[in-house]
């Protein structure tokens, strides 16, 4: 791997994740978050070279929705701006590429999505092919349920296994003051929750939530002044699979596997076990099991806890604010490696692997390797 530019996460802030904030518009949720993220990184807005947001017009119900947050991101005098119609973690990737091209040294990345103003179920249905899939009324829960059935049959995992995974995440979420569901619930109790779409029970699915997030990235030379413990990006890659879910093996994640292989190579690590923390963008217990397999982690079923700590944040099962869910995974990596994880801190964590996903049934996947030390000398 050739030498790349050292880039670090130097600040993060988020709004509380709630089901519905009737007092603030999306820009109004984001404004204090941007101000706080800049404060956390010890800079003024004028010190930032570049900005990029991740959001969705369909979630917000507005065309070119990103333009409404220009004002609160501090886009005056006219700034360099970009946007991705994706989870904001992909905006972070775009900024990282910009920094590799030396087009900027400092940047803010914002995520927003006013989920409560629309109907995510309808929107996510429209993500599918209009002829064969969307017209059936499939939404993200039903496609996840199709995936879950397939995986359970193939891997021999039963309902109790799903409950175990969900309960472990709920227990972790109880220690995360920034997530939405903060009560530990036992596997037995989760198994009593009703099926939403069989085999997925209410207790195996995330709550509806919304928030706003802002991450600050900076290149070597500036990052050190902005954060006491910058968290360096060692490797990153993302891969996408076919839209047609019938053309994919739903029981495995080829794109996660390949993205991880490339990210690990960039980071110069052998594999996931070189990390102490792994944060996965899994929105169902089955997604977590598929991702564990793709990354080379054990399933963790049966109470086994070998290898790195997985999902110390409680995972998207405890909060899934669309367009922010992925960036929150990157934020967890930052918090864990920079001494900002409070009660849930993984002791001695020096390296983290972060994953996020987009699309139905883990269609697109991004994998990051983060470290407390610079990657390239």
């Amino acid at each position, binding site marked *: 791997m050739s030498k790349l530019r050292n880039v670090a996460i130097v600040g993060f802030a988020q709004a509380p994740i709630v089901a519905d904030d009737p007092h603030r518009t999306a820009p109004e949720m984001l404004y204090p978050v941007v101000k706080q993220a800049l404060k956390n990184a010890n800079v003024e807005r004028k010190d930032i070279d570049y900005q990029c947001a991740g959001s969705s017009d369909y979630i917000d119900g507005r065309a070119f929705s990103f333009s409404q947050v220009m*004002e609160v991101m*501090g886009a*005056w005098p006219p700034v360099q701006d970009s946007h991705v119609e994706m989870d904001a973690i992909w905006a972070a990737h775009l900024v990282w590429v910009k920094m590799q091209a030396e087009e900027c040294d400092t940047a803010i990345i914002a995520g927003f999505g006013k989920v409560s103003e629309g109907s995510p179920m309808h929107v996510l249905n*429209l993500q599918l092919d209009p002829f064969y899939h*969307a017209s059936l009324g499939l939404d993200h829960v039903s496609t996840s349920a199709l995936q879950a059935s397939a995986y359970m049959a193939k891997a021999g995992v039963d309902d109790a296994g799903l409950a175990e995974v969900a309960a472990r995440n709920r227990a972790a979420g109880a220690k995360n003051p920034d997530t939405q569901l903060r009560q530990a619930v036992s596997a037995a109790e989760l198994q009593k929750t009703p099926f939403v779409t069989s085999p997925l029970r209410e207790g195996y699915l995330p709550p509806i939530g919304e928030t706003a997030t802002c991450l600050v990235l900076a290149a070597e030379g500036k990052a050190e002044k902005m954060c006491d413990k910058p968290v360096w990006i060692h490797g990153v890659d993302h891969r996408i699979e076919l839209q047609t879910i019938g053309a994919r093996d739903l029981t495995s994640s080829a794109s996660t596997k390949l993205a991880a292989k490339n990210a690990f190579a960039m980071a110069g690590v052998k594999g996931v076990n070189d990390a102490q923390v792994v944060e996965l963008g899994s929105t169902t217990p089955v997604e977590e099991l598929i991702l564990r397999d793709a990354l080379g982690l054990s399933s963790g079923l049966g109470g086994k806890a070998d290898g790195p700590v997985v999902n110390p944040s409680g995972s998207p099962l405890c909060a899934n604010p669309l367009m922010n869910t992925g960036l929150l995974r990157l934020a967890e990596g930052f918090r864990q490696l920079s001494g900002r994880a409070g009660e849930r801190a993984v002791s001695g964590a020096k390296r983290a692997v972060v994953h996020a996903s987009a699309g139905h049934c883990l269609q697109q996947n991004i994998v990051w390797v983060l470290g407390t030390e610079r990657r390239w000398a």
Partner: protein
Amino acid sequence: MEPPKERVKFIQTDLVLPYHYYAGDYKALYLRALKDKKILGSKCSATGKVFVPPLMSSPDAHAPCEEIVELPDKGIVTTFCVVNVPVYGRDIELPYVVASVALDGADVSIYGLVQECKAEDVEMGTRVQAVWKPDGERQGDHTDIKYFKPTGEPKAPLESFIHRL
């Protein structure tokens, strides 16, 4: 392969996407005040600029605008246009004037119709005042101001509002 002789099968999808937009506390305050024939703005804590409708933060200074101020319903026409073609959904006699109105004391304009005068009598700098819907009919939305009408006061010189264009 022969191209099809009949029209290729297509599907019509009538997308039903329900949304309810929140005004947010700042704009809700503004809308509610219209019911009482009051126009509210907010003042930037860094530059003192007054925004109407009120904003939580100033776009140029990136500073909070927490102070709410009441503005008069009088101001000047900064820029305007004369509409000569019917617009879908509007039942207004042609031609009519749509104007950017800088209320006295505000640093940004609001938009409205200018009526009770001939279109050719409207100029940049014409002083205007809001004509409100009668009591009991105002709903707390932007149509509570029916239109603006000229006050007959002397026209404002361009230098006095050139920074507000």
